[in-house]
């Protein structure tokens, strides 16, 4: 249990780490069902560059810092990626702006980017979950 508490403590300041750790521990992801390959994220944080490797196969993802051959490379600032990991910035728009640079297997990155969370909403409209099956 101690390790979980520690992780949580770290997550509060590091949305990027939180996102990747979450990804590593979640079950098979249907959105990645047809995507496979390794992505390398180069996240520039001041003078240093943080590397994350995500290898995905049939919906299951492994996350690591260990160097591996990448099919796609995503380069951006750590600060921007923190925003993307919390839904405050959009990958596609960032790519068009050139603040995020892609290389390699674009289909893989496109499948992967769907896992980033929704933007935070100031006033959440009640989701009509209770209406499920109202067409009955």
């Amino acid at each position, binding site marked *: 249990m101690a390790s979980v508490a520690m992780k949580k403590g770290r997550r509060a300041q590091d949305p990027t780490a939180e996102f990747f750790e979450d990804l590593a521990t979640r079950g098979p992801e*249907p*959105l990645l*069902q*047809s995507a496979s390959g390794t992505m390398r994220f180069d996240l520039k944080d001041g003078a240093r560059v943080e590397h994350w490797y995500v290898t995905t196969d049939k919906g299951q993802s492994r996350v690591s810092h260990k160097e591996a051959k990448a099919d796609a490379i995503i380069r951006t600032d750590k600060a921007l990626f923190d925003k993307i990991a919390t*839904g405050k910035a*959009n990958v*596609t*728009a960032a*790519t*068009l*702006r*050139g*603040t995020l*640079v*892609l*290389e390699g297997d*674009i*289909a893989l990155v*496109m*499948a992967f980017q*769907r*896992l*980033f*969370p*929704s*933007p935070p*909403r100031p006033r959440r409209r009640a*989701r*009509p*979950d209770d*209406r*499920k*099956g*109202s*067409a*009955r």
Partner: protein
Amino acid sequence: MSGDLVQILEGNTFVVSDSAGDVEASPTDPTGLFSFDTRFLSEWILTINGERLNALSTDDLQYYETRFFLVPGTGTVYVDAKLSVIRQRAVGDGFREQLTIMNHDDKPVDLEVRIDAGSDFADLFEVKDALKKKGSYERRVERDRLVLGYKRETFERETVITSTSHAKIDEQGLTFKVRVEPHGQWATELAVTAVLGSLNVLTQRGDKRARPNMARGLTKWVHKAPTLETDVDSLKATYRRSLVDLAALRFETRTMPGHSLPAAGLPWFMTIFGRDSIFTSLQSLPFTPELAATTLRALGERQGTRIDDFRDEDPGRILHEARFGEMTAFEERPHSPYYGNADATAMYVVLLDEYERWTGDHRLVRDLEYQARAALNWIDEFADLQGNGYVSYKRRNEKTGLENQCWKDSWDSISYRDGALPGFPRATCELQGYAYDSKMRGARLARLVWHDQAFAERLEKEAGDLKRRFNHDFWVEDGEYFAVALDADGRQVDSLTSNIGHLLWSGIVDKSKAKTIARHLMSDRLFSGWGIRTLAVGEGRYNPIGYHVGSVWPFDNSFIAWGLRRYGFKEEAARVAEGILDAAQFFDGRLPEAFGGYPREMTKYPVQYPTACSPQAWSTGAPLLFLRTMLGLEPVGDYLVVDPALPASIGQLELLDIPGRWGRIDAFGRSRVGTSGR
């Protein structure tokens, strides 16, 4: 100046120039070289000894290539022209222009040939709305090339101009000092390259696609499609026009190189549109089924996963429009992509099922099971904004989102009889039809391919219930038709519109009501003789040249005719097909987006609605769907049922080598309605 605009394109790169080949764009003028929604040239002017040139003729060689025949001087008399000039231009990752000058005189001539070049790097949206640029410009000469640049923060775009012959290059353009011998000629090739900076990864560039391949590609495309034999020559011409235009409208995405889907329109809508790509794929399924497969994959890859108010995105929602320009990049527009439509998601499932029925491609249906389920889920979970069991729409992006999220997307398209406009949300009737159809078709796929009996039963139950409620709640008692919408209070928006035809197509109409609906569609109020009007004569907002309030849309009519056939109204379907196909003759086989709703006997020819975009994909697809409807083509199991019902004006109609799960098959139709059926 030369009036007519000439356009050529390849994918989403295109050039619009005047008939002399020059570009001299004002900020709001839609001419220039465009790529990925950015203008890379807004100035491209050829002069010889300081003089502009005059167009003798223009040859559209192919959709990606054109040739301009020019002479110096801008007068109207060319008698003394001793020089002629040919500019042959082909689009690729920018364009290449072969410039040839011929001297017809007995004496040599010394010429100063000049190309002035410039770019405002306008976003397509800026060209429409005349907005100011926020970044900075640069012009620089690098050895043998001129570079025009634009930069806003990390957003960088460049235009690189080179020439095969030696030129004196300055920051404003290129100058050639040329001597042309008697009866001799001089030539150079100019290359203009659009450089997308960090976005180059999204292009196919580096493939070095050569022109001959493009030409061969087009020939192959036309040959692969079924062959049409008919006694009506204009119909043959229309069919060929449709196939060639469809080829031009093909669009490749970086994630699926070698496969293309139909973009919405040329040149301004050469991008993925959920609605347009799906409708066009449906129309062209019996002819070019690969378009549907690519559309389904491409839209599936981009299906919504988040709840994002700016983009009107929900999980499972199929996108509306994707763009790549500066305003999208800086989130001044929501097209990265934008999801604000209320129909494409249900239509996605409809297309998947129709595709399976034609091709038997179970693999794709299995691959897209998750996407199809997410789409079906969207209908119940996210589209029922009022909690009344109907699909409705209201944009969440109130600044730059779309107000009307149905195909009739103009501001006044949905109105009460008296012309008043309802508030939001709006539940337009055709959306309920699409939802019904998607549930029925989803159920079929669930049984056949996903092997989920319980899901199939649930969907059918929901569809049955929706149909029952719909036939009650939308039925306008005193008019005996379906209301175009329910308003925010659940009241009927009671005008008579073409939307009721889509309801037949979806199958949501009770059998007992179908005859009345068909009668309305063919009545003088809706049927002009050329086609069915978007809004009936006599309604408050009716205007024969109003965009969605009286004009006739070929695409709309093609689906209505399909709907009429679905309910057994063969003769009516044939009459609609005949009217629109007759109209096509007046446009050289290229149907416009819409034309006027004037009665046929009044104008004798269809009055074109002024629009900048031609060909439009779903107008291009309309003749294809009419052919299917007239021949009564319907896949049943592994067979193709042919049940022709031709209009009086078509004596013979044969479609040979129709591709599908049966391999290739021929369909024959002969003579008048009723006499040729089986």
